[in-house]
């Protein structure tokens, strides 16, 4: 695709200065390095989660039992809502990559269309997560009866009806940190959408900024793929 990246260039010429040895612009290069460091942060969180799961192997709650509700429809739909959220995020990733592709053809209208859809799906995902959090915090009708006869509903930072306290803490921290990334991603997308509509990139003659923000957005989707498997499925 990128002609600079597919050219075979002699190693000495490549590293002799005057050009990027990686064949990409400075901004995109730094976005990649930032994503590596961010991936390490998420990796650390998920590894801590794995540690806690092993420690409480017998009593760790099952995702399909805790997350089985749909808005307006009640209980009995194991993992359906999480699957819907995952699907929305994947589709938003697809619209983003289509925006990048249109940018490579300098097609302003198509870029704006796909970017706007990406923003829309991102906001939809954030709303879904807010609903899921609210549902998790309020808990079930039955709740959990403690040894002293009192009943607790839902979970927060000091109690948890579903299982070990750490389960609730990891839920809030991992999905919260991911949701914060989605939120910043939506902000970036809105800023870039405004710049596209104002014709900033048309003057610049390339839409690389869409690609850089797209990298971040795909990364958010990538993290969710892992969170989905490790937190909800396994």
């Amino acid at each position, binding site marked *: 695709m990128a002609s600079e990246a597919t050219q075979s260039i002699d190693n000495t010429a490549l590293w002799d200065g005057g050009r990027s040895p990686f064949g990409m612009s400075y901004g995109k290069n730094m976005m990649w390095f930032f994503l590596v460091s961010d991936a390490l942060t998420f990796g650390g969180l998920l590894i801590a989660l794995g540690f806690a799961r092993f*420690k409480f192997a017998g009593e760790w709650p099952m995702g399909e039992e805790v997350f089985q509700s749909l808005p307006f429809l009640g209980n009995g739909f194991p993992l359906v809502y999480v699957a819907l959220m995952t699907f929305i995020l994947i589709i938003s990733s*697809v619209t983003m990559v289509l925006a990048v592709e249109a940018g490579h053809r300098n097609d302003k209208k198509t870029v704006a269309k796909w970017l706007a859809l990406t923003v829309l799906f991102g906001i939809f995902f954030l709303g879904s997560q807010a609903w899921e959090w609210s549902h998790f915090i309020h808990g079930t009708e039955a709740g959990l009866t403690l040894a002293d006869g009192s009943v607790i509903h839902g979970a927060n930072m000091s109690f948890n009806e579903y299982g070990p306290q750490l389960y609730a803490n990891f839920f809030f921290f991992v999905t919260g940190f991911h949701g914060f990334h989605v939120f910043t991603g939506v902000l970036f997308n809105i800023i870039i959408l405004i710049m596209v509509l104002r014709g900033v990139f048309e003057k610049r003659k390339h839409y690389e900024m869409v690609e850089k923000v797209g990298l971040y957005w795909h990364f958010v989707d990538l993290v969710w793929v892992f969170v989905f498997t490790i937190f909800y499925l396994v």
Partner: protein
Amino acid sequence: MERDDLIVDESYAINAHHSEEAGKKIRRDIYKVTLFLTLATILEVFLGASFKRNETFTWDVIVTVFAILTLVKAFFIVTVFMHLGDERKNIQRTILIPYFFFMAYMIILITIIEGDFQGLIQTLPF
């Protein structure tokens, strides 16, 4: 002295442009990956919803399927959606190799060995 052989930052971006026909092929690839990601997610949800976690061999197989599907999904997102497959070999390796080693080390040492040990000392009678 001004040098004229320098590659300006902008030229990398302009070099990445492609024609209408090339775009068609790229979009077809994108739709193929979308289809795969959707089907893989549906399969994962189906398996996750219909099997409960337990100590049987079936569950071990399902967990392995989850792990493989997740890694394959990640591979397609990174290579096709993030275009890492289209970049130079040296940047691919710069990004992936250090990350892979660091993660493998943490997963094996902290999650598996240390986590298992923590679970073990909880079951001790003293």
